Each structure stands twice: as structure tokens, then as C-alpha cells.
């Protein structure tokens, strides 16, 4: 049973079509990147799949069922900028939300849940800030906190929206290592991603998107100059050069 399968999905806001007849599926136990330029409809694809926005036609099934039937098996990590980081809530409480989501929000959390939350925070390098209000976290820590919450949901499928946006290198490393660990455990992970150059290293499967599906498959098969040209159009040259340069700078490679 495919953990994530998009069938002929079309989404429109107001009068503008953002996604046009997209279909693809994801194998169990794989780490998949959804890649495309800004405004390609990557986040929209996720939101429509999870029933947060309503698709015009088509839809997504999870493990062969509609989302509402298998909610507990799926954990979604929204974009960092989707929430108000000044909200009065502590790091620990946000982590616990993952357990609440699993148990139902009326039930009290058990001691075991709190212990699990602490252990996971520790694992993500956030134990020392667990009492702090979330506004005191750096961008990378915020993203790691979101992942902590997702881990505590104990799901089989993880869906992350831009987890590497505005994140420091150490956090990016920690996050990708955790995702790979999840993969080892047989979980499926779908990530919306914007950096073409780490895509090769990170993902087993890539979905290249620009309003409609350009290509899907292994990174080497998909990220060809022709496909990138189709996805990014005229922007591709500048974008390619700039991101290659940024990558080289980060890794300390001479250009």
C-alpha cells in the first residue's frame, strides 16, 4: 500500500490555478523531496492533501485511505513562518502537543508522555531550552522543535514543509540525520525543499513541480538540465549558478 499517492489533483485559489492535474506516488520507507521554484504550488500540494485547502478535483490517499481515516499515522510539520513565535508557550509544551495530538486533546498526558517529550528534546539538542518561551529560540532551534513535536506523534508518514528554510548548517545537519534515521526505521518522509544542490544527497526520490508535474524519479534521472529548464524556465541559469556558488561557499570549495 503506497503511503502517499496523489491522484489528478487540481487546486485553484480564487480564479488562479496553482496546481494542474498532478499525479505521483511515494514508496514506503523512502525519503522524498518535492522541489520546484517559488510559487510552484509545493506547499499548496501538501495543504490540499491534508484537507487544509480544498482541491478543485482529484485528491490524495494515504496508505490507500483518505486523510481523515488515517490521521494518527501521519505527522505534518508546517512552515516555520506559519505560526506566531511570540505566543506564550514553552518549548516543552510545544513538544507535548505531539503527544496530545495522538491521545486526543481532552485527555491528560501521562508521565510516560512527558518522559518521552524530554527524551526527544534531548535527542534534538533542545533539552537545555525546554523551559524557555519559544520566542527565545533561533530559527534552527524552532525548526528542530517542530520536528521534535512531529517525532512525538509516532507516525508512519512524515510530511515537512520547507524544514531547511532559514536554518543554520548545524540544525540542517541534525534534521536531515533525524530524517534518515526515520527512514532506517521504515518510515516514509516527504519534504518540500528549495535547494537543488542538496537534493541529490538527501533524497531517494524527487518530485519536480511547477504548477504541473515536470518529472518524478531518482534525483539523477529527474534533475537533468532539460527538466530544470522546464521547471525553472529562464530563471534557471541564475538560480543554478547562485545556488552552486552558495553551496561551494558553505563547503569551503574554491570557485
Amino acid at each position: 500500500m503506497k503511503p502517499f499517492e496523489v491522484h489528478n489533483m487540481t487546486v485553484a485559489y480564487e480564479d488562479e490555478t496553482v496546481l494542474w492535474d498532478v499525479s505521483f506516488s511515494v514508496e514506503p520507507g523512502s525519503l522524498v523531496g518535492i522541489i520546484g521554484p517559488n510559487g510552484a504550488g509545493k506547499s499548496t500540494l501538501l495543504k490540499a492533501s491534508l484537507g487544509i485547502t480544498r482541491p478543485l478535483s482529484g485528491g490524495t490517499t494515504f496508505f490507500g485511505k483518505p486523510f481523515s481515516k488515517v490521521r494518527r499515522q501521519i505527522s505534518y510539520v508546517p512552515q516555520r513562518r506559519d505560526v506566531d513565535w511570540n505566543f506564550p508557550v514553552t518549548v516543552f509544551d510545544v513538544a507535548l502537543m505531539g503527544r496530545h495530538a495522538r491521545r486526543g486533546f481532552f485527555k491528560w498526558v501521562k508521565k510516560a508522555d512527558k518522559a518521552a517529550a524530554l527524551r526527544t528534546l534531548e535527542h534534538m539538542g533542545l533539552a537545555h531550552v525546554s523551559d524557555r518561551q519559544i520566542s527565545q529560540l533561533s530559527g534552527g532551534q524552532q525548526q528542530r522543535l517542530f520536528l521534535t513535536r512531529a517525532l512525538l506523534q509516532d507516525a508512519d508518514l512524515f510530511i515537512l514543509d520547507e524544514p531547511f528554510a532559514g536554518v543554520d548548517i548545524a540544525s540542517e545537519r541534525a534534521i536531515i540525520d533525524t530524517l534518515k534515521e526515520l527512514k532506517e526505521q521504515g518510515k516514509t518522509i516527504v519534504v518540500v525543499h528549495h535547494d537543488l544542490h542538496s537534493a541529490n544527497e538527501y533524497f531517494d526520490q524527487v518530485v519536480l513541480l511547477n504548477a504541473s508535474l515536470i518529472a518524478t524519479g531518482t534525483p539523477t534521472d529527474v534533475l537533468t538540465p532539460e527538466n530544470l529548464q522546464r521547471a525553472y524556465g529562464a530563471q534557471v541559469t541564475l538560480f543554478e549558478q547562485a545556488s552552486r556558488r552558495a553551496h561551494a561557499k558553505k563547503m569551503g570549495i574554491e570557485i
Partner: protein
Amino acid sequence: MSMFFDSATRGPIFGSFLMCICAAVSGVLVFLRKRTLVGETLSHATYPGIVLGGFVCAFFDGLVSPVVLLLCAFLFSLGGYYLLRLIEEKGKVDPDNALCFTLAFSLGLGVLLASQLQAESPLWARRVQSYLYGQAVTLTDTHIYLYGILTAAVVLFVVIRFREIEVAIFDRVFASSVGVKLKGVEAALMFLLSISIVVGIRCVGVILMSGMLIAPSIVARQVSRSLGKMIFFAALVGGVSAALGTGIAFYYSTSLESGAKISLPPGPVIILVASLWSVLAVFFAPSRGLVFRLYRSVTFHLRCQSENLIKSIWKKAGNGVTRLKDVLACHSQQKWLLRLLIWKLSRDGWIIVDGLGGVSLTRDGFAKAEHIVRMHRLWEVYLVNHLGVSAKKVHRSAEEIEHILSPELEKELLSFVGNSTHDPHESPIPGQGGVL
């Protein structure tokens, strides 16, 4: 103490106490939902309801009037909310405009109806009038029971559904993905808000009501880092404001010799107490208050100055001695300030000032200076080599960065450029040997 038991005063005191707690609790939720103006609009929307309630009470004599009025006000408050939503969503009107329109429309309708009531029943017209500005002094035991039940219901609801409300306000997308019904939570919040408003308007009036919703939240926001604490503090602020406000109002109400009576209305006094409290919180709260932020900013500024002084002594004297006058001449700040900083530096053991106008660094001071210069120059290397900034432009940035680097950032910087020996201006980078 007798105030609490006297049948004439216990109504106002407990009535406004309960009302403030109720308003504070639901106020926090709409405050965090960033929809406080909805509170203002809905409280005005209750007014035509109150007037209609007046008609009903005038027509059927002998009804339990507070219950009738509250019920009518409550229905109109909910009606106001649906009108608001209708205009916003179906009419595609900007939220601010929709709020203004609903508020003005309701008040206009209320005033029109009130003039009709005046002709019908002057007694009820006068009673209804008092809901505009509030009349806490006329609260009775019936109000205490009624408000007690409603406040308890609001608090209980928030306690039971706490985690759900928290996640729905904090992270809507996540909440919806895990199956929280956002529309249900939103409706519940508006229900709570409407209850708090109808509990409050008799006491502080339709016009001042929103103050009681917001002021406790402003105070509580400054001092709390979790939602539970914020609600608790807001309720505390509301309760204390109510007690203080009614206390002050009664204390300063006096009878004149002529037989006329000057009485302070408790409602506005409560609002003023709560507002004063929120102003104080904005200025003096420990971590977010303006005064402490100013203090921290000044302290940081002074630390930068002292570190710059150490740096210039290091540049002039190195391991040896230099003239204090020459050091001070490099700095443009006020002389007295520099003298003060020098005195503090020597007291803290970074430098030694001898009696002959000479100054030198202690061993610790020397290490500190080297560290500062090292960070400055490494940062310049980082900017030039890793970010491609021109070497001419990096000094200013480094002047700032040398003072703010945390141990973690320092480690990261070292991982990039730790083995550089010279900065972009060809000056050697000191302290290569490590800590010792």
C-alpha cells in the same frame, strides 16, 4: 471588611470581581487570536438587545429582569458576530471596515430603539440607559449568583478544553492536520467572549467593556511564558482591579452638607485601575518592560565602551605601560564617562593605573584584549573570504560583532576561519596559541 457583607455594597464588589475575572479569561484568548476589536464590536452589538429586553420587561411585568436582559444581550452579541462574518466573508470586505460597520450599525439601531422605549416606558428606558456607561452600584445579589454561574462556566470550559484551544490559536495548520475543528474552537471562543461581555456590560458599560477584555491581557503578556500562566495572571489582574476599583469608588464617595451626593462610578474606576496597571507593566515588566530593556541596552553599550578601552590600551602598550592620556585621546566619549570606565576596569582587575599617569593591562586584561581583537579580525576574514564582502567595508561590522559573539557562534566562526593568521588588512591575528 464590612463592605463585603453589607447588602448594599457586596453586590457591586462581588459582581464586578466576577465580571473582571470572566472578561480577563476570555480576553486573553481573543487577544492571542489577535481579534480584540471583535470584543469592542460585540459589546456594542449587545445594546439593541438590551433595549429589546427593556421592551419585554416593560410589557410583562414581574419577570426576573436581569436574566431577560442578559439573554437578549447575549443573542444580539452572537447575532453581531454572524453579521460580522457575513460581511467579511460573503461581502469580501476588509475586517477593519466590517468591524466599524457592525459597531456603528448596532449602536445606531440601539439608540433608535431606546428612543421608542422612552415613549413606551420611561422607567425601563432609564434602566436600559445605564448599560451604556455601566452602573455597578446597583448590582444586587441576583447578579452575584448569575455572574458566578456564568464565570464558573467560562473558566471551567477553558480549563477542560485548554490544550485544544492552545494548539488551535498557536498553530492553526498543525491543529487542523491533527483533527482539531478550527471552526468549532473559533465559535466556542466567540461564545465565551459573548458571555463575558453580557456579564460585564452592566458593570462597566457597553462603551468601556473592551478595556476590561484587553488590559489584563497586556499585563499578563509581559510576565508569562505559557498560556496557563497568562490566563491565571490576567484573571488575577482583573480581580484585583475590580476590588481596588470598587474600593476606591466607595471610599471617595461622600455626601455633601447640602444633602447632594458625590459618588464615583465604580465601573470607570476599575477600568482606570486596570489601564494604569497595564501602562506600568509595559514600562516595568522584568524581561519585556521598556525600563529594563533600556537598562540592558545601556549596560551593553557601556560594556562595549570598556572593551574598546582595553583594546586601545592593548594596541598602545601591548605588554608594557602607556600614558592614560594618550589612550583617552583616542576615544570621543565624555571624559567623565571614560574616567568612570577606567576606574571600573581597574577595580575589576583588567588594568592597572599607576600614580604617574601610566596604565597597563593585567595578565587577564591582556588575554581579554587579545581575544577581542582576535574575534574582530577573524570576523573580518570570515566576511571577506566566505561572504565576499569587500575588505574596505568589513571593519564597521567587526567593531560590532566582536562584542556580541556567544560561545556557540564563536565556535562556528572558528570552524570556518580558525586557522587564519592574518586579517584582510594584513594585521596578524593574535592569540593563536589558545587560552594559555
